[in-house]
């Protein structure tokens, strides 16, 4: 019997209601295969994803966070995804500086017609996270104490 558990990435996917969620739906209806590693959260717009949500997902053990929204120019709230780009860039930089791999955060534009792209992105991102391995913990264990500056 196999005792050691294989690493299965846990990915939180925040999909905008108007495009990417519909894209995921299309992937499902078209019976496209993609890995079952994502947990989808439907949001009204990619612009509603606060950096808090990203931090919280990692804090609670997500190995990757995927944010997907309408293509630029297609956001149903006009400027929502402009904010998303900037936030994602900022968060990538911040995570990186804190020592967390920025590759665990991904932003994609997926329209309602792009079921194929959705499946592709999930497949690819899952593989990426699989190679990165489990996300490092947020715990600041006292065992890690370094000297006071």
């Amino acid at each position, binding site marked *: 019997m196999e005792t050691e558990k294989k690493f299965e990435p846990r990915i939180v996917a925040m999909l905008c209601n108007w495009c990417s969620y519909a894209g995921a739906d299309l992937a499902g209806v078209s019976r496209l295969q993609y890995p079952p590693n994502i947990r989808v959260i439907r949001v009204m717009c990619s612009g509603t994803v606060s950096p808090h949500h990203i931090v919280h997902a990692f804090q609670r053990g997500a190995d990757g966070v995927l944010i997907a929204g309408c293509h630029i120019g297609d956001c149903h709230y006009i400027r929502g995804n402009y904010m998303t780009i900037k936030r994602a860039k900022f968060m990538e*930089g*911040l995570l990186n500086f*804190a020592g967390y791999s920025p590759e665990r955060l991904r*932003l994609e534009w997926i329209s309602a017609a792009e079921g194929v792209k959705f499946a592709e992105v999930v497949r690819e991102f899952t593989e990426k996270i699989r190679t990165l391995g489990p996300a490092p913990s*947020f715990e600041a264990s006292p065992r890690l104490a370094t000297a006071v500056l």
Partner: protein
Amino acid sequence: MKTKIKKLLEEGRVDGFFAYKTIHGFFFPYLFTKENMDELEDWKPSSARYPIAKLLLAQARKNPEKTYGVLVRGCEERAVHELYKWNQLDREKVVMVGQACTADLAADCECWKPFPTDVAYGEAVEPVAKSARVEMLEKMAGEDRLKWWLGHFNRCVKCFGCRDVCPVCFCTECSLEHNKLVETDKLPPDSSFHLVRAIHMGGRCIDCGLCEEVCPANIPLRVLYKEVGKLVEEVYGYKPGSDDGKSPFTFLGDELMLPPGPR
């Protein structure tokens, strides 16, 4: 200070003036009014720092009708500018008198503008363009950086000193007290505490370094927020504390737009 600040008080330009007073040889922030203006001293260069913009904010909130003067360093002026933009202080009700920082202090702070716009006291010295501490961290491998930070974060006693002293932390409700983001009964807090605070400093931190100065655990917080400032400049093209009245973080409009096109 004896002449300039006294004059402002005498002429009624300001109702109170925030400067400092030396007590037992230490510099303390002090509110001067017409009643105690004879206690004003001669200005001396010093590296004493205190959250004067925060004290000003507290008084201005209590007495919205009053006009206050304040003796500011470069960073304190930036804080006041930022507070204007977030509608926390009224531009019409603040009079700033500037003092320049010494070269030593500027070097210690790695300060990018160690002097206010108008310098009434002291000589402006050269700014420090780059932070050696940020560069040192950038050079590390990701895993080492994580170890480095966790090794510091684990000393955090969650005293909230960093937040309480910060001149631009003015919210009445704080995400750091949200028990889902930062668990209430967990010590040391996990990285979320520091990341959430770093996120909130995006577009606000004016790099005064008081957070790091008060931290009882000696956590190099300023380095983290220096990087936040750098990212904000790269991504939003904005440097908090400028005097142009607008911040992309408080203003919805064309400033928010990126050139359209695929990423």
